[in-house]
């Protein structure tokens, strides 16, 4: 049975040690986070006036990339909405932006119809306006999935690695080789204690095996535990790290239930 040995979940980043599992399971979770967890992002932009140095399309793309706060309990995807894809408050969040004076236009200048949807990160530059230039637009944000466009991907840099196992045979090491091993480790996780080589922080090991190569054969063995993983990910802020992984697990569960129904 899958176990979480330690979980360090902050608002925007998390680090989990998952044991008693296999790479297939951890990777399924990773891919569900990347592709399937829905989030809010700007999809349609109506330009009333744009005399800025950037094209409408570039500005629309930049607006799409801005993380928006997502409340999955309130919003429904537009295809599943009772409005039949026309766009209603249940499936669409509207923003307006209007600037006529010179200066940088920031993501914080997007005015939501309800303060609940205000952009999380107000300091993202969108475009700079110079003397006499104007930018007036309306934007519609909807729920989407990472498999359709990266702007709907809430997770950033999800990854896992095997939990390192380092076995040291002290009899085959001498003062000189201990020094060499400590020196070559790029993460500096080895140290000497009372004439013995010890591991300081095993989770930082990248399994590079540099230390194995500088000592006598068999003195140090480094390998990955194929049933235990260090899983790390970040979010762009639209969902918090905990909601994100729970949602991904729910989606996986529903997919398997569906498969069961289809077979059974």
């Amino acid at each position: 049975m899958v176990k979480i040995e330690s979980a360090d979940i902050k608002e925007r980043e998390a680090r989990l040690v998952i044991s008693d599992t296999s790479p297939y399971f951890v990777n399924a979770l990773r891919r569900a986070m990347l592709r399937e967890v829905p989030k809010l992002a700007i999809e349609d932009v109506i330009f009333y006036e744009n005399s800025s140095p950037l094209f409408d399309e570039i500005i629309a793309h930049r607006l799409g990339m801005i993380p928006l706060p997502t409340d999955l309990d309130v919003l429904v995807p537009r295809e599943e909405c009772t409005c039949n894809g026309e766009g209603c408050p249940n499936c669409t969040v509207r923003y307006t932006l209007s600037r006529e004076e010179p200066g940088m236009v920031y993501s914080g200048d997007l005015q939501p119809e309800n303060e609940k949807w205000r952009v999380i990160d107000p300091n993202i530059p969108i475009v700079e306006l110079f003397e006499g230039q104007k930018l007036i637009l309306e934007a519609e944000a909807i729920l989407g999935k990472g498999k359709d466009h990266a702007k709907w991907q809430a997770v950033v840099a999800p990854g896992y690695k095997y939990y390192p196992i380092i076995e040291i045979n002290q009899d085959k090491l001498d003062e000189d080789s201990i020094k060499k091993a400590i020196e070559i480790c790029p993460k500096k996780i080895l140290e000497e204690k009372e004439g013995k080589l010890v591991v300081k922080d095993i989770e930082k090991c990248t399994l590079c095996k540099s230390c194995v190569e500088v000592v006598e054969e068999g003195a140090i063995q480094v390998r990955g535990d194929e049933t235990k993983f260090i899983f790390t990910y970040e979010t762009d802020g639209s969902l918090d790290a905990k909601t994100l992984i729970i949602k991904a697990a729910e989606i996986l569960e529903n997919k398997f239930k569906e498969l069961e129904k289809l077979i059974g």
Partner: protein
Amino acid sequence: MIIPVRCFSCGKVIGSVYEEFKRRCEEYKKAIESGEKPKETPKEILDDLGITRYCCRRMLLSHVDLLKDAAPYE
């Protein structure tokens, strides 16, 4: 042109820290030019801003702001 909103490789939002990064780097440059010891190096600024992966670091380090040059051509 203008700083991208996100890192091309990993998708982290990096646009929001660009102006602060630029401002602090200019302070660093000023200190170096006047022969003083700078308060922080660009490396320390990036670390402090939470830009830890090298894909995101290159987004800020290699960016050239050319929007001003394009300004007359709306």
